[in-house]
């Protein structure tokens, strides 16, 4: 189904810890991967996480190895959500990774939790 730009759709999002509502970044949707093996490389993550828009894989300044986290940006909500639901809890080099959203709406404003099926969702999915 195609939607007009700006049309609001109720989103049933998946999050390992569903106490918050994911927030869209300026140019996409950002997720956090933790538990990344310190000797993993960019290409290992790109192989696992598919079509990413950007990847930040920062180094530990003292050791020169990875910090152990990666921040990944996707163009669209579905791709980010897929990455979270399929990759969270999987193994990369004998290390279990956790994958979750990076940004969220103000958690104290939790009206969406009381009525998860209402049309008051603040997330606008824009297609095309």
């Amino acid at each position, binding site marked *: 189904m195609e939607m007009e730009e700006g049309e609001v759709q109720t989103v049933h999002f998946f*999050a*390992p*810890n*569903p*106490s*918050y509502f*994911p*927030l869209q*970044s*300026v*140019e996409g949707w*950002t997720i*956090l991967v*933790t538990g990344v093996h310190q000797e993993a490389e960019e290409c290992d993550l790109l192989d696992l996480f598919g079509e990413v828009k*950007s990847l*930040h894989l*920062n*180094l*530990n*300044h*003292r050791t020169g190895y990875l*910090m*152990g*986290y990666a*921040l990944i*940006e996707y163009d669209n909500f579905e791709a980010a959500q897929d990455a979270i639901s399929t990759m969270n809890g999987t193994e990369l080099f004998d290390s279990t990774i*956790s994958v*979750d*959203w*990076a*940004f*969220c*709406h*103000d*958690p*104290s404003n*939790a009206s969406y*939790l009381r009525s998860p099926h209402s049309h008051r969702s603040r997330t606008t999915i824009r297609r095309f």
Partner: protein
Amino acid sequence: MAGVVGGEEELEEFYVRYYVGHKGKFGHEFLEFEFRSNGMLRYANNSNYKNDTMIRKEVYVTPAVLKECRRIILESEILKEDDNQWPEPDRVGRQELEIVMGNEHISFTTSKIGSLVDVQSSNDPEGLRIFYYLVQDLKCFVFSLISLHFKIKPI
């Protein structure tokens, strides 16, 4: 009310603030960021050089991001350190790092650190080295978060 549904661990008190700055011919120039236990990440960067303006950004991060921030701090073992042998802030500048984790509330204040040479020549090279690396790792984490979310170059 973070963690209404799924959270246990994010109920622990958590706060981190880092400031680095100086007052000079371009006024008060500084970089500051903080993480609060409700997930708010605040970032400010004021540079008056070439009429640059103040950048202020605020966004809520998820419990997963806070947990990673907490891990970075714990693994650095900064909580065992003490700043009383560290160089005092001076005309060149000032750094402050404040951390609240559970029952611990600790603050560090020192001068700017140009390089590891400054660390080695100080009275507490081991402690100052931990601070020096932790600050870089935290800055790097925050810059990645801010630049991905807002599409700005933080420095």
